[in-house]
């Protein structure tokens, strides 16, 4: 039974049929979109996972170096060493369009052009361990940025996939069946109307003929 009331008219039927065609095409397109999004997402998420493993290992290693440095240095010296950072990282955020998901693209610039010019302290009072700690962290920075980019892309694509899947399901299981149901209902109603008109016409014709020739009386007379 049709879920909501529709007018059983020919115009409504034409409209519905046209809408059904659009809905079917939309459904097919969205399904394709979902599949392609899923394929790209799975690739991306694998990269994301590998990158995260790398970054986590790198940061853990750097942290070990820092622990080593802080063990041999006074806390105050350590604090003052980083008070005035030499380096500064700024980001440009572009965007890339993957299947109509706009994911961010990060390109970074450092203030000093020499990537080794990162030590913001004199070497006299700090330990050599600190240098290697800072170096190990600086080395991992490009990977960290790549991770940020990939991870954000994954999150946004996951959201898009969820949205698309909902749309596909809504079309497949609600909108399209309802339209087909309505079309069937209207077709049957129209057919029924046509039959009843036909019957009425036949009856009227009978009556008219009866009036003109009075068949029943003649039969009786012949009888």
């Amino acid at each position: 039974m049709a879920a909501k009331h529709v007018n059983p008219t020919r115009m409504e039927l034409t409209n519905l049929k046209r809408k059904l065609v659009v809905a079917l095409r939309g459904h097919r397109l969205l399904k394709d979109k979902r599949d392609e999004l899923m394929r790209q997402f799975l690739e991306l998420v694998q990269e994301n996972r590998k990158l995260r493993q790398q970054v986590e290992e790198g940061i853990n290693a750097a942290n070990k170096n820092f622990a080593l440095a802080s063990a041999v240095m006074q806390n105050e010296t350590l604090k003052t060493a980083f008070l005035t950072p030499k380096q500064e990282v700024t980001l440009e955020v572009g965007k890339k369009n993957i299947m109509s998901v706009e994911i961010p693209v990060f390109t970074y610039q450092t203030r000093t052009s020499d990537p080794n010019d990162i030590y913001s302290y004199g070497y006299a009072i700090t330990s050599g361990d600190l240098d290697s700690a800072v170096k190990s962290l600086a080395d991992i920075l490009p990977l960290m940025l790549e991770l940020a980019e990939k991870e954000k892309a994954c999150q946004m694509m996951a959201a898009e996939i969820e949205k698309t899947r909902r749309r596909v399901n809504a079309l497949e299981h609600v909108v399209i069946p309802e339209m087909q149901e309505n079309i069937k209902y209207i077709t049957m109603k129209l057919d029924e109307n046509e039959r009843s008109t036909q019957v009425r016409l036949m009856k009227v014709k009978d009556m008219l003929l009866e009036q003109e020739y009075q068949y029943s009386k003649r039969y009786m007379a012949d009888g």
Partner: protein
Amino acid sequence: MYKITVMGDRDSIYGFAAIGLDTYPIAITDDTSAAVRKLRELIESEYAVIYITEALAEKMEEEIDRYRDVRLPAIIPIPGVSGNTGMGMKMVKKSVEKAVGSDILFRD
């Protein structure tokens, strides 16, 4: 022009200052209101990428989840001095679960 910042306990993040990232030390307690306020403040300003130590991120997961679907900022958990809690991988896993419906990559 955007910048990058690191949030977490001081011991985990002070090194990042050396390589040119802004650091915001936050003591990790069960009361996260100060951290949440700081995070919102950072998001409002010029930061596009915010790294948060896993220990802190775990405490304010709900707040972080609110920024999953928006393009900026990217909030990324990183391990702190106390080691790896698996929080970062959990976020990746969450994306997979959201997209696929169940976890198909991390079943080991």
